C-alpha cells in the first residue's frame, strides 16, 4: 500500500504540464501514470518505461499448443492403430491440421492469460487507484510518493497546473 497523489485535469495539455512539473520531484520511473477513458499516446503525458513482455508468452503458447496437438494426434494413432481407408497409421496431413489448430488455441489462451496478467487484471486487492470521473472527459494523473515532503510538493505541482480535487489516496497504481 503506497501513498498516491491523484489529480483530475480537464484536458491533455494541463495533465502534460503537471507531469512535466512532477519531473522536478525526480520520482522513480513508473511512479507517475495517467488514468484515462481513451488511450493517450506514449509520451503525451507520461511514458511507460516497462517493456511489454507477454508477446513472448504468446509465442511460447503457440509452441506448447503445437506440441500438445502433435502429441494428441500421434497418441491417438499409436494407441489405437486401426487401418482406415488404406492410409498409413501415422497419417501426416491430418496431423498437421490438428497440430496447427491446437497451436493456435495455445497462442490464444497464452494471449488471454499472459495479457490478462500483465494488464494487472483480476488483482486481488490491495485497493487500486481509480476515479470514475475519467469518463466525463477528465484525465487523472497519479503520482506515487514517499513521505510527506514529496506528497506536499506533488500536490502543489498538480494544483499549479490546474488540477481539480487533488488529494492523497492509499492504494496501488
Amino acid at each position: 500500500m503506497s501513498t498516491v497523489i491523484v489529480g483530475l485535469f480537464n484536458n491533455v495539455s494541463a495533465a502534460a504540464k503537471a507531469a512535466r512539473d512532477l519531473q522536478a520531484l525526480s520520482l522513480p520511473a513508473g511512479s507517475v501514470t495517467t488514468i484515462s477513458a481513451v488511450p493517450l499516446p506514449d509520451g503525451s503525458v507520461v511514458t511507460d518505461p516497462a517493456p511489454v513482455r507477454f508477446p513472448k508468452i504468446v509465442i511460447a503458447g503457440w509452441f506448447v499448443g503445437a506440441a500438445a496437438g502433435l502429441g494428441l494426434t500421434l497418441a491417438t494413432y499409436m494407441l489405437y492403430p486401426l487401418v482406415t481407408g488404406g492410409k498409413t497409421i501415422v497419417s501426416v496431413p491430418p496431423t498437421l491440421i490438428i497440430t496447427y489448430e491446437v497451436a493456435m488455441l495455445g497462442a490464444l489462451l497464452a494471449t488471454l492469460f499472459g495479457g490478462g496478467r500483465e494488464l494487472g487484471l483480476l488483482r486481488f486487492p490491495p485497493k487500486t487507484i481509480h476515479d470514475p470521473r475519467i469518463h466525463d472527459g477528465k484525465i487523472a494523473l497519479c503520482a506515487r510518493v514517499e513521505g510527506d515532503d514529496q506528497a506536499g510538493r506533488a500536490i502543489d505541482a498538480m494544483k499549479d497546473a490546474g488540477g481539480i480535487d487533488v488529494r492523497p489516496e492509499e492504494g496501488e497504481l
Partner: protein
Amino acid sequence: MKHTWAMAIDLDRCTGCGACVVACGAENNIPVVGEAEAGKNRLMHWIRVNRYWEGEFPEAQAIYLPIPCMQCERAPCELVCPVYATYHNEDGLNAMVYNRCIGTRYCANNCPYSVRAFNWYDYKWEKPLDEQLSPDLTVRSRGVMEKCTFCIQRIRRAKETAAEEGREIRDGEVVPACVQTCPPGAMLFGDLADPHSEITRKLKDPRRFRLMEHLGTEPRVVYLKRQKGAGR
C-alpha cells in the same frame, strides 16, 4: 492363417431374381421398411440388384447388377468416420461397429457404390416375426449405419469350428447368405489367399472387372462381364 475374402459375381448367370436380397435380409435381421418408406428411398437392403435398361423397345434389354458392399481395400468410408465405427479388420473386411456409430452419415456420403444403409427409425418386428431374428447378430437401433459384412457371423463361426477341430477353414465352408441362396449360382465366395480355392481360379477369367475402378477403392467384389451373343 491370414484370409483375403472375396466375392465373384457372374453377370452371365444373374437373372435379377432378387433372392440374394431376401436371403440377406433374413440372415442379417434387416427390417422390411414398408411401401411408404421404400417410396422415400429408405430401403434397408444390404445387397441390392441394380437394373439398367439397354436399347429401346422392342429390343430393350435389362442388365442386372447385384451390388453388395465392395469391402474396398482402400475404403473411402473408413477414412471419414470420426469415431472409428468402421475400419479395416485383419481379414481385409470393412468392419462395421454398430455400438460405436454416432450417425454422422459421412461414411455413406463417401461410398461411391451407395451400399450403406442408415437406420432411420427403431424398426419393429411384430410378433411372431421377432422369432425369425438371428441371434448371431444384433438388431440395430435408430441412428446407426449398417451394411453388408460378407456375413461375418458365418465367417466367425467357421473360424471357431475350424479352430476347435484344429484345422484350417476349407474352401466352400464359408458361404454368405446371398451366395448360398443364388438360384442360378451366379455368386461365389472364397479366400483369395488360398491358391487352390475356387475363387482364385475363377478370378483368372478374362471377363473380370470391378465397379468404378477408376476411383481407386480396390473393391473385393469382382464381376464377370456378361457375354453378348445369339439369344442373349
